[in-house]
């Protein structure tokens, strides 16, 4: 059973690291705007955006 204790402690440690990462992400404002970054990626210079993707975006806009 002492093995289980070690395993539980190890899993807790990993979970704590993720909790820490989450707290850091929230405090640094990464959850303040959950919308724009998605678009920003699409508008990245390096890759070409598929044409129909752009057209779709515009369609949804015009319906708003």
């Amino acid at each position: 059973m002492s093995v289980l204790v070690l395993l539980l402690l190890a899993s807790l440690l990993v979970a704590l690291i993720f909790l820490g990462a989450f707290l850091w992400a929230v405090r640094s404002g990464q959850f303040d705007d959950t919308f724009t970054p998605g678009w920003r990626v699409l508008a990245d210079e390096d890759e070409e955006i598929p044409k129909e993707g752009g057209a779709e975006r515009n369609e949804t806009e015009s319906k708003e």
Partner: protein
Amino acid sequence: MGVQSTLTRQQAEQAQAQNDVPCFHCGTSCKWLRVDDAQGRPFCCHGCRLVCELLESSGLDRFYDLAPAPGVRMEKEAQAYDFLDEPAVRDSLLDFFDGSIGKVTFRAPAMHCIACVWLLENLFRLHPGVGKSQVNFPRREVTITYQADNMRLSELAALLASLGYEPELNLTQLQHRNKPTPLHRRLTIKIGVAGFVFGNVMLMNLPAYLGLNAATEPGFALFLSTMSLLLSLPVVFYAAGDYWRAAWLSIRQRSLTIDFPIALGIAALFLHSLAEILTRTGPGYLDSLTGLVFFLLCGRWFQQRSYDALSFDRDYTAYFPLSVVRKVDEREETIALTALEVGDRIVVRHRELVPADAELRSGHALIDYSFVTGESEPVERHEGERIYAGGRQVGGAIELETVKPVSQSYLTSMWEDAAFHKEGGPRLRNVTDRISKYFTLAVVLLAAGTWLGWAFIDLGTAVRAFSAVLIVACPCALALSAPFALGTAWRALGERRVFLRGADVVEAMARTNHIVFDKTGTLTRSQAHHVEFRGAPLSAEEAGWVASLARHSTHPHCLSIQQKLAPERWPDDVSSFYETAGSGIEGTISGHALLLGSRRWIEALGIEVPSDAEADMPSQVHLAIDGAHRGAFVLTSALRDELQDLARELQGGRVPLTVLSGDSDKDKTRLEAALGSAAAGLHFRQSPHDKLAFLRGLQEKGAHVMMVGDGLNDAGALQQSDVGVAITEDTSAFAPACDAILDADRFGSLPAVLHYSRRAMHVIYACFALSFLYNTIGLSFAVTGRLSPLVSAVLMPISSVTVVSVAVLGARWAARSCLGPQPGGAS
């Protein structure tokens, strides 16, 4: 002539059809004006072409690849932003400034698509002074870092404006510029902590559920329960902190809100678990406890969403501009409004706002007070007369001398009324709180009864059963019903462009039993007029001339006349056009001299107007062609098309409606005809204070009043009402403080929205019934003293999840049946 005119008409139609292509920059049709660039691409105006050329020469042509015609039409003239460089103004606008680097956040409501975001984040390519710029699209904000040595703040604002993203600058930004700290950040952290603990405590409790024998493995059992206890401490004392505070508050205020039984349940869970763990009699209910807090916080998060791009608590300062043009020694300068002093001479141009009570010094003043007082017609003022703040000048520029500081004008004094400071007063008790009062009493009685019942048999079981009742009765599912049902309703309404301040507005709306409407801008459309021509009918050709002439003026009457006549083809351009501000316009078309204006102006030009024509009113526009009076256009404000249907539907729902108007009773008969028997009363010439008093009177008689208005004159009534609904043609424009913002296009959906809010309440009642059912099952275990941690750990999530699903699905289904299918793609 007949043949020739058909030919030219055909040609003109052909030309128009050819030009009916979208502008390459902004997508507006080039029907009226087409400007081609060197590559033959069509533009709707020179402004659009210039922006396109600027972007392409700066290597930003990718803008046009991201979305078709992504630009913003260049409608407004360039504005001077010099006042932004005044140290006082600059410092209050900047987020950060160290002498060389400045950081500023502008709101630019014009941004609307992915290309806008990209362009605004690539501003540095257009000006070497711009550093990093970052867009927050939901808030329509762009945060820009710039080098102060290289660029002034005014240049930055002008750069944004030159691209079509005119930054929103108003007095609010100067007066209180403390950015709201993101409240939801704290809630997100709490949910994260509770979720983390919930998962790990379940892990620690798994061996116990799988049959760990605490007697044979005492060390391991102790380790597991100690770990769960340590883990749950942050949940009990941090994540659930709001519930402790709320429960304490509800005791002090002697009103049992839902938070009280929740806190009671959490306390019972924690103390019971603590006792079990310390006496090594069991693992406790810590998994139920942490799960409960996690679900409750999720419910809170679901309900506490708001629209970043909309503001529901704007006061008059958001309506006032940031700057004003001051005239000193015949020289005009733009200064910050806060720097305006009594006795200053200011210049107010067409469609600009009079920022302080002032006296007219020169120019022809025609002041549109519709937003402030509800009067639908602009009023004429003569030199030396007083003009109150809040009015908009229509026509040419006027010069004024201020007689009162901005903060002491007639308009701002209205804000001193108590109705605007009622925040913090007793809020309406919501349905959950009303039910929880009886619920708490029942639970406490039942727990005491159980204790008494067992106390004579076995004291140990009595204590266990007592706390088990409190644990099981913890109204988690009950507390989740309303947040999820109302939160879903809030979203469903938002998708259909009915924007509520918060989810609880749905409940207030469901209780509405009296609706009060403002007239100007609410029941009537603010820009459109119903136009009727009195006189010998105009030929098609003459109508074309008049429309063409009217097109040259920005006066609202001209706009209405032009829209009414809307010729199939536009005649030759107008020559020798001249506008006498506030009086009339003249011009020559195809060799015919046209005069369009007020009766007095036309008479002053030596044209005889038949005396049978009605008295000269601002809503009559007389027409003379080649020196002969032809008749008059009579303009009446157009009632919204949906009004009759709306009145009929409200009458079906037996909701009486009242109209309170600041205007004269000239529209009375038309309103009566449109509203029919649905109208409980029509009141005219109501001042903002009268409206407020009228609402108070209704409320004293026990009515739950919904006020529907649009202007500053309704602001007091909107605040006083139980639900204040602001109608606006443009949701990004100014709307007075209110509970709901309704897009003017959706005006007709008001009865459906009311009906839906009532249905949403039915969904909540169904959820309540369901959660009572679960509580009864749990209580049957608890009262008999057989509640094991496993039963509790299974029952609690199941009840929460089913209640949440019923709430969400029920509210969605009700939305589809009351409001029609969800318009696709709205984000």
